[in-house]
Structures are given as C-alpha cells and as structure tokens.
C-alpha cells in the first residue's frame, strides 16, 4: 500500500493496538501475579503492578511443587513437557518424511491403499480413538513413561500430505541426475530431499512442537505417576489443592514458564517458518 489515507491508517492502527492489548493483558496479569506473594494475591483488588517476589517465586518453582502436584517441581514438569513435545515433533516429522518418500517415489503393491489408510487417520484424532489407544499403550507397558506420552500422537496424516506435496514439486530430473551420480534411494532422501524440504520441516516443527506442548487430555489419561506430569496438566492439578486456597502467585509463575518454550521456538525459527509457509521457488 503506497497511498496515504490518514483516517484509514488511524483506524487500522487503533484496531491493531486494541488487538495487542486484548492479547497482552492476560499475560501482563499473569506476570504481575507471579511477582507477588501469597498474601497479596488473596486481597482485593488484585494488583495490576508488579511486586517484589518474582525471583523468589521463580526459585520456588524450580525446586518444589505446588498444590496437588506438590510431589514434582515445576521445573521437572517443564522438562517432561519439553521431552514429550520434542519426541512428538521430531517423531512426526521423521515418520511423515519417510512415508511421503515411500508414497511419492516407490511403486509397491497397494500403494494407493496405504495412501488412503494414512488419509483415513485424519478422521481419527486421539480423542476419538482414546480408549482403544489407551488399551494398546497399557498392554505394551508404556503407561507412565515418555514413549506412552508421545508415540500414540506421532502418526500424522497432515504432515505426510504436506511432505508429499513438497516432494511432488521436486522435478523428476533431480532424481534422475542423482541416480546417474550414483545415489541410492536413501542417499537421495538424505542428501537431496531432506535438505530441500528444510524450510518446510522448520515450519512443521514449530506447529508440531506447540501441538505437543499443549497436549492435555492424553497425558492426563496415561500418567498416574506424578513424576511424569507435564506442565499443562500440572497447572490444572495445582488448582485442585485439597484444603488450602490455590497459591495463585506460584500457579501464575508456572503458567508464565509454560508459555516460554513455545515462544522461544516460534521466535527462534521465525525466519525459516515464514519461508517454509510461503516459499515455492525450488
């Protein structure tokens, strides 16, 4: 837009600023609450300016647990979430890359059958197949460990399709040139397909990491051992303190910490992420 229209500019800026405020206000409240002590958080009106207990609360969160999740420190829950989210994101990408590779580049019997089988899983998210999946995971002895937390969430039709589309845009001559150069299938995959899908992998990683990080229902179901709690379900547990009032300052500190890794991932991979979603030049 090169034209200058002051009124339109003012309006769009107002709308944008309002939008930012709406998003930012709860985060500000969270931050403020995380910097007060328990006493202040039980008095009305609730504070709108930061207090002086931020570092103290932070230290507490990394050493001890809160509320119903008292047995595990917030730091440990963050670590659990991180491991789960990484396993899901990396696992999904690895599996989808390989299955897209198979579907696009190999002629095997029932190829289209497999393609449709993957497609159908789109209609069966975890929530729908939760009981049979639970049974399978339980029978495999994967309750209360990282495998159980991540493996059932790894299969991904969406990512498979995305990589399939990416591979389909890669000209056949590249495969042929690689064949003449003496690259076998896995060489071609590793040396050419994967590097060429780099930006798409990054974009997908961001999306999948956040997807994994935000998982609530599945971890809730399969973890009974509190040492395996993830941060998202942990926060919910903190609210259900048996006798005492919820320790809002610590809960808010946990919430604040829980927001950090997704932000780090998004900011860190922002450039690749945007290129991955927009770039078509191959």
């Amino acid at each position, binding site marked *: 837009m090169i034209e200058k229209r002051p009124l339109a500019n003012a309006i769009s800026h107002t709308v944008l600023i309002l939008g930012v405020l709406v998003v930012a206000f709860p985060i500000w409240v969270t931050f403020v609450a995380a910097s007060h002590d328990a006493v202040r958080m039980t008095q009305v009106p609730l504070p709108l300016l930061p207090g002086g207990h931020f570092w103290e609360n932070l230290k507490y969160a990394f050493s001890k647990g809160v509320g119903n999740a008292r047995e595990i420190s917030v730091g440990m829950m963050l670590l659990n979430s991180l491991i789960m989210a990484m396993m899901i994101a990396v696992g999904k990408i690895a599996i989808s890359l390989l299955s897209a590779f198979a579907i696009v580049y190999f002629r095997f019997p029932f190829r289209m059958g497999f393609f449709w089988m993957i497609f159908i899983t789109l209609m069966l998210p975890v929530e729908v197949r939760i009981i049979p999946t639970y049974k399978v995971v339980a029978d495999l002895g994967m309750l209360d460990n990282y495998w159980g937390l991540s493996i059932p969430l790894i299969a991904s039709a969406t990512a498979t399709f995305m990589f399939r589309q990416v591979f389909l845009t890669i*000209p056949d*001559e*590249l495969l*042929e*040139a*690689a*064949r*003449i*150069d*003496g*690259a076998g299938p896995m*060489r071609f995959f590793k*040396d*050419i397909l994967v*590097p*060429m899908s*780099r930006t798409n992998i990054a974009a997908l990683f961001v999306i999948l990491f956040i997807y994994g990080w935000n998982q609530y229902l599945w971890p809730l179901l399969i973890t009974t051992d509190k040492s395996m709690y993830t941060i998202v379900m942990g926060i919910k547990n903190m609210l259900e303190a048996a006798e005492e009032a919820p320790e809002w300052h610590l809960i808010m500190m946990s919430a604040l910490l829980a927001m950090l890794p997704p932000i780090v991932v998004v900011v860190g991979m922002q450039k690749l992420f945007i290129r991955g979603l927009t770039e078509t*030049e*191959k």
Partner: protein
Amino acid sequence: MAEVSIRNVSKSYGDNEVLHGVSAEVKDGEFIVIVGPSGCGKSTLLRMVAGLEEITSGKISIGGRVVNNIEPKDRDIAMVFQNYALYPHMSVFNNMAYGLKLKGLPRDEIRRRVEEAAKTLQLEDYLGRKPRQLSGGQRQRVAMGRAIVRNPAVFLFDEPLSNLDAKLRVQMRVEIRKLQHRLGVTSLYVTHDQVEAMTMGDRLIVLHDGHAEQIGAPMELYENPATRFVAGFIGSPAMNFMEAEVSDQKAHIGGEAALPCPPGAPGGKVVIGVRPEHFALAEDGAAGLKIHVDVVEALGPDTLVHGHIAGQSEDIVIKFHGSPRFAVDSIIAVKAPPEKIYFFDPGTGRRL
C-alpha cells in the same frame, strides 16, 4: 571412450509403442545428434541409453557391453538435462563433486577434477554460489561441468540449450562442440532444432514418429534426403513441396507452368521438392514458375519471399541473395536447376 550401439530398440508405454525398432551405430568419439519434431521419441531414446527408462525390446551396448540391465551409475555415462537438474541446495562445487563423492574418490582428487572442469568452463569464480544465484548460461555450464568431472565414456545431452536465449545458444553450441572435440568423448545430443543439429553433429539421426528416418552426415542429409520428411526437416527455411505431374522431362505444376527435370526423372504424379535457396529468377519471364508474392522479408544478406502458386496447397518460400526488391501481390517467375529438384512419392513420402 566407447562406441554405442543401438540395435532394434523399441519402447512401449503400456499398449502405446513410441519407438518402433530404432538401430544406430555410434563410433568412438563421434558426436551424434538425434533430431526430430516434438514427441517423436528423442528423449525416450536418450533416456534408454542413460538407463533411466527400461528398454522394451532390442539391445543397447556401450563400449561393447550390453547395458540393458545395468544401473545408470554403472553405465559410465553422464547426462545434461534440459532444465539442468542442478541440486538447488548445493553450491556449484558440491553439485559437480557429488557424483565423485559417492564414487568414493579421495578429497584432493575431487577438488582437482572439479577445479579443472571449472577452469575449462570459466566457472572458477562461482564455485561457492548456489545455482539460483547464477544466470541461465552459467547454470548450463555447471550442468556441463557435472558431466565432465565424471570423465565418462559417453555424454548424453537432452536439449541442453533450449532454455537459453538465441545469442547464448549460438555461443554455447560452439563451446560444447569445441569441448567435445577436445575431450574426444562419444556424445549423443538430442535437439528439435535443425540448425543446432546441422552445425553440431558429425552425424544425425532423424527421428520421426518413433522411426529413424535417416542416419547420416548433415550435408548428406541435406543433399540426399531419403524421405520427404527429412527433406522438409533439414535445411532452413524448409524445402518447398509442390504437387506435380511429370511428363516429357517436365514437371507440370498446377497445369500451367513447368520446371525442366533431369534425365531419368520418374514420371506420373509426384511431389517435387525445391529448396528455397535453389530458386532463381527466370530471365525469360514466360518460361518460369509463377509465384504470387505475399510477404517479403529482408534479412540483410538474404531476402525471403513468401508466396504461393495458384492451385497449390503449400506456400512457397524463396531465398534470394542480397536485397532485390519485390512488390507485394506482384507475380514473379522463377526457375530451378534440374539437378536440384527432388522427387517424392506422394503416398509414402519416399524419395524417388
């Protein structure tokens, strides 16, 4: 170095046969151009030599070894693709080095070979760049470099110049020819451009609808085309064809005018062909072939006259030296030397 022998090779995609038994013997160090119109099966033939396409029937051997069931990488060939097929994420150096790395050559040997090729192709300054940071001509040279470093027995080119602009194409045409001459590597070169074919090839294979219409040196095909197709395809502008009735050593065209024929010319209904450059103005206006002038194109050294003869379906192109002037819609009378007139069977298109 190696000879390539293609023996009665056919290719079918399902029920659709696209090559019907093509045979050709390529001598060691020869530059063979496979030429023909779009869709005639040139790429298919080349890709079968490369091993990228299965051979339905027939045999292909390289250096005396039948390669029908040998993987492309083991055929000792290198191929240059029309769209270059450079690895977009690799630097120019790595593009050229990739095949050598996979072969397991030592590092310094790879470096030496790539640098030597880069020097030959004037790519030294670009070794660190990615393909997308290069111009079309530079990419083309990288593709050539990737072929050269492999030190293959046979080069295969599939329309390597068709993505370049006209001027660069002429330049690269000469470069490729020089390079091939120096390296002495047997080459198969596919193009649909007959000028490229004429200027580059030691010999040409003219493909038409999956048949090899004629195989021979460029001038041989120009002077002695075996079929109407070859006659029309080789030479630019293309040969003119006219329906004629031959009797008394005269070809009667459209009933009125006649061209004198050489002794021993076939009689009856034929198609006669005369190249644009073999026509000349008839001094004695009445005796010549009457051409109605439609368009005059002055090219500088030559002038092309596009016109038609009353009663003939195909237009006529005549090439005059220099820049004689003709008025549009005028009638000019032309003649052709009898020995420069070709006779073709109107049905089969065979030369008579």
